[in-house]
């Protein structure tokens, strides 16, 4: 194990600026109204920097810069844009530990995840979209001997992106990479809970981008997010968050007649069929790890496997082993590489999780382990830590239906395939799901029957580029992480060309 040093302390790889302005037009610009807000770390609850509290005026400046940059950026050769994305990926890799520490300090996640998942995936997504734009081809249709329809991809222009706080850097890259590859300029608003790591990233990569191609405006949703999402000067808006804000953003988009892509969360079922327990082997162990994945990123993942469905015939023994695995989850200092679960991202997130634990109890769900705030002592006493929590109950309970966004899994049993599918699909959401079985036929049928955008089959929480990610039902519109996302950031230009010398004869 290694305990990385807190930012700004002796031996640390990172020092945050004491204050961050907005990144607009390739330089730091103070917010027009001169106001800043404090940014606390969930690791200790202490403030470590302050960040621009932007308003519509700052969004307008960012849009000015983006509009100034977009035409030239959109005309660059795909090879040139790909090279820029590749350079950003290289820079991220060269500063991997530094960015991981930044992410941990801003968000509270354990550094083992940031080092092995968030940052390597961010670099890989950039390289993937650099490759995808190089490999993208337009299409032509020969309509008759003398008439051809050419289809060109063109950038949308200037797009707005509002990103969440659970994977601040990775989610920023998920949205930036396809938008930039496709030739758009971007105004991006990080979440007010976690603006610092994205702003530090701009400190590291700002020189690699033409001024104005990426602009980062910090602030509160109502003061900065809304002016961005409702601006008639954006050609598209992409948002990751929750359903009510998602609807509101669609509402604004309808006024401007622009497309939206939304990723709005879920209540993902993780289905364990009885044959998983046919042997106590490596695969059984993998399935137990799959159960414990509800604690990844403290459960603050839109695809958190927050409902575990276990077949009745093996319910007691599998759940017993799963509880043992859950109790072995090591909670500790998020900067310690041995720590498996860190801090919830904010105080209000902590309070919300605790309120759901209370309603779970009140509805009659049985608390099997966890269920409480954890005091890790010392400086960490002020941080926001929750013990991994397992409830047993039935799928009609609110803890089975609402996204808690914490390390809380609700477990229930099922009898047979059809029952499993009925429970799995009895949810408003359809983002992720897990299926665990040794039977390939069952795995295939379950994967096709579950109404979710991604069904992890004998795995969970893998987020590679080149696999489409997105929601069915209330979980949103659009996909991420796959070359098809380029379409979400491109117009189709059709040139309908006649090579005939003679007219049509109508007039």
């Amino acid at each position, binding site marked *: 194990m290694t305990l990385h040093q807190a930012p700004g302390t002796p031996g640390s790889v990172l020092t945050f600026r004491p204050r961050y302005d907005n990144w607009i037009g390739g330089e730091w610009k103070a917010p027009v109204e001169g106001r800043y*807000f404090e940014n*606390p770390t969930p690791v200790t609850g202490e403030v470590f920097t302050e960040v621009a*509290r932007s308003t519509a005026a700052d969004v307008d400046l960012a849009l000015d810069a983006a509009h100034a940059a977009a035409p030239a950026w959109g005309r660059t050769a795909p090879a040139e844009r790909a090279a820029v994305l590749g350079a950003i990926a290289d820079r991220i890799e060269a500063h991997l530990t530094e960015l991981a520490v930044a992410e941990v300090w801003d968000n509270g996640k354990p550094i083992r995840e940031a080092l092995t998942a968030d940052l390597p995936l961010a670099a890989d997504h950039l390289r993937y979209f650099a490759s995808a734009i190089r490999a993208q081809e337009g299409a032509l249709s020969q309509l008759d001997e003398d008439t051809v329809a050419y289809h060109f991809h063109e950038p949308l222009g200037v797009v707005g992106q509002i990103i*969440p*706080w*659970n994977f601040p850097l990775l989610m920023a890259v998920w949205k930036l990479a396809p938008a930039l590859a496709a030739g758009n300029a971007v105004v991006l608003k990080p*979440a*007010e*809970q976690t603006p610092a790591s994205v702003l530090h990233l701009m400190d590291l990569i700002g020189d690699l981008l033409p001024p104005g191609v990426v602009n980062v405006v910090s602030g*509160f*949703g*109502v*003061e900065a*997010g*809304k002016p961005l*999402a409702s601006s008639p000067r954006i050609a598209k808006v992409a948002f*990751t*968050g*929750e*359903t*009510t*804000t*998602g*609807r*509101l953003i669609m*509402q604004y988009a309808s006024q401007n007649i622009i497309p939206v892509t939304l*990723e*709005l*969360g*879920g209540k993902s079922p993780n289905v364990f069929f009885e044959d998983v327990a046919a042997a106590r082997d490596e695969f059984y162990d993998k399935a137990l790890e799959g159960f414990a994945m509800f604690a990844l990123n403290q459960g*603050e993942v*839109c695809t958190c496997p927050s409902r575990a469905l276990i077949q009745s015939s093996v319910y007691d023994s599998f759940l017993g082993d799963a509880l043992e695995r859950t109790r072995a989850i090591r909670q500790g200092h998020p900067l310690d590489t041995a720590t498996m679960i860190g801090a919830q991202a*904010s*105080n*209000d*997130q902590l*309070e*919300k999780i605790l*309120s*759901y634990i*209370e*309603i779970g*109890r*009140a*509805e*009659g769900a049985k608390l099997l382990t966890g269920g409480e705030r954890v005091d890790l002592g010392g400086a960490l006493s002020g941080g926001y830590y929750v013990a991994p929590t397992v409830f047993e109950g*039935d799928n*009609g*309970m*609110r803890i089975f*239906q*609402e*996204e*808690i*966004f914490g390390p809380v899994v609700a477990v229930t049993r099922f009898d047979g395939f059809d029952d499993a599918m009925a429970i799995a699909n009895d949810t*408003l*959401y359809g983002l992720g799901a897990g299926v665990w079985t040794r039977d390939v036929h069952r795995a295939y049928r379950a994967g096709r029957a579950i109404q979710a955008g991604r069904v992890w089959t004998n795995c969970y929480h893998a987020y590679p580029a080149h696999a489409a990610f997105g929601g069915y039902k*209330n*979980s949103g519109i659009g996909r991420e992480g796959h070359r098809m996302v380029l379409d979400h950031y491109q117009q189709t230009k059709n040139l309908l060309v006649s090579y005939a010398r003679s007219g049509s004869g109508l007039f």
Partner: protein
Amino acid sequence: MAAGSHRRVGVTDAAAALLRELARVHGPLMFHQSGGCCDGSSPMCYPAGEFLVGEADVLLGELAVDGLDPVPVWMARDQFAYWSHTFLTIDVVPGRGSGFSLEAPTGNRFLIRSRLLTDEELTALGRASDGGTGREDDRSIL
């Protein structure tokens, strides 16, 4: 606790005070309960009329807050199916964010606290508990 509770929804004194503060700046207010990711499962507070409600929504009730117009509390109809057996109290905690909810810049966050409705309340509301267990034994106020 409930400064003007109304059937399915109520509001704590602290939340009512914050609503009065917000109304001074933004005028009449409304809530829509959010579902889903990140900042979800939280009540979102907007200027009245900012969020378009329609057939997809249910009006849970209106909060009576001294000095303010009634504050309607809405929820998506499909989500309500799972919540209809619970009484919701809008409270406030120190927080950061989120969504486009009006209170975020004040360093506070509205939060839902829930308790199970009693049989008497459910009868008065004219519907059976259709989302929960309806168990007799646990109706503590949260």
